[in-house]
């Protein structure tokens, strides 16, 4: 069966520090991969998605970036965190089938201090 791993679960970082969140999927190949951010009490904002290795689509301009160095690995990064980067980050995957839903990881709670 397919599983998704996302880490760390929680992270406290000072303003200006770098960020690296990692997500890996097991049990499937060539998944579509996604990064979402959820601010407190709000909906999900799509940050990046990828349909293949090295293919990244960005939804919002910001100081975050994403990379997909391997088929089932998706990394969210920042060189210098801002206070506004605080939030709950969710990684998700789906197959390329039209009715495939998103399958989410457990999320990372990021607090920038």
């Amino acid at each position, binding site marked *: 069966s397919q599983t998704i791993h996302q880490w760390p679960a929680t992270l406290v970082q000072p303003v200006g520090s770098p960020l690296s969140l990692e997500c890996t999927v097991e049990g499937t190949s060539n998944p579509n991969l996604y990064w979402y951010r959820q601010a407190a009490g709000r*909906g999900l904002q799509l940050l990046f998605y990828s349909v293949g290795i090295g293919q990244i689509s960005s939804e919002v301009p910001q100081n975050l970036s994403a990379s997909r160095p391997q088929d089932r690995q998706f990394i969210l990064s920042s060189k210098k965190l801002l206070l506004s980067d605080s939030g709950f980050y969710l990684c998700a995957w789906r197959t390329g089938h039209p*009715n495939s839903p998103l399958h989410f990881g457990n999320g990372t709670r990021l607090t920038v201090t």
Partner: protein
Amino acid sequence: AQTVTQSQPEMSVQEAETVTLSCTYDTSENNYYLFWYKQPPSRQMILVIRQEAYKQQNATENRFSVNFQKAAKSFSLKISDSQLGDTAMYFCAPRRGNQFYFGTGTSLTVIP
């Protein structure tokens, strides 16, 4: 970005009763897919139900069903026999291409 409206920020329902959560969306496409997700206090996102727009029959999953009105671009979720474990945020999410667009959510509380 696609507009998704969940007009009920908060709702409550007595245990064992029925509740309906509303969702409207904007799309110019004819064939697409819609999803409802549940996010309990653990914050894990859980798929509740999905609907394919070309199917006229409303989807059903145990106590969960949808009322899909394609012309009105409405996709409401009905929860029957509400249980305490249904307490969660519920998000409507139409899919367009490779992108899922999430509404702002409805916080549902089931009262014992």
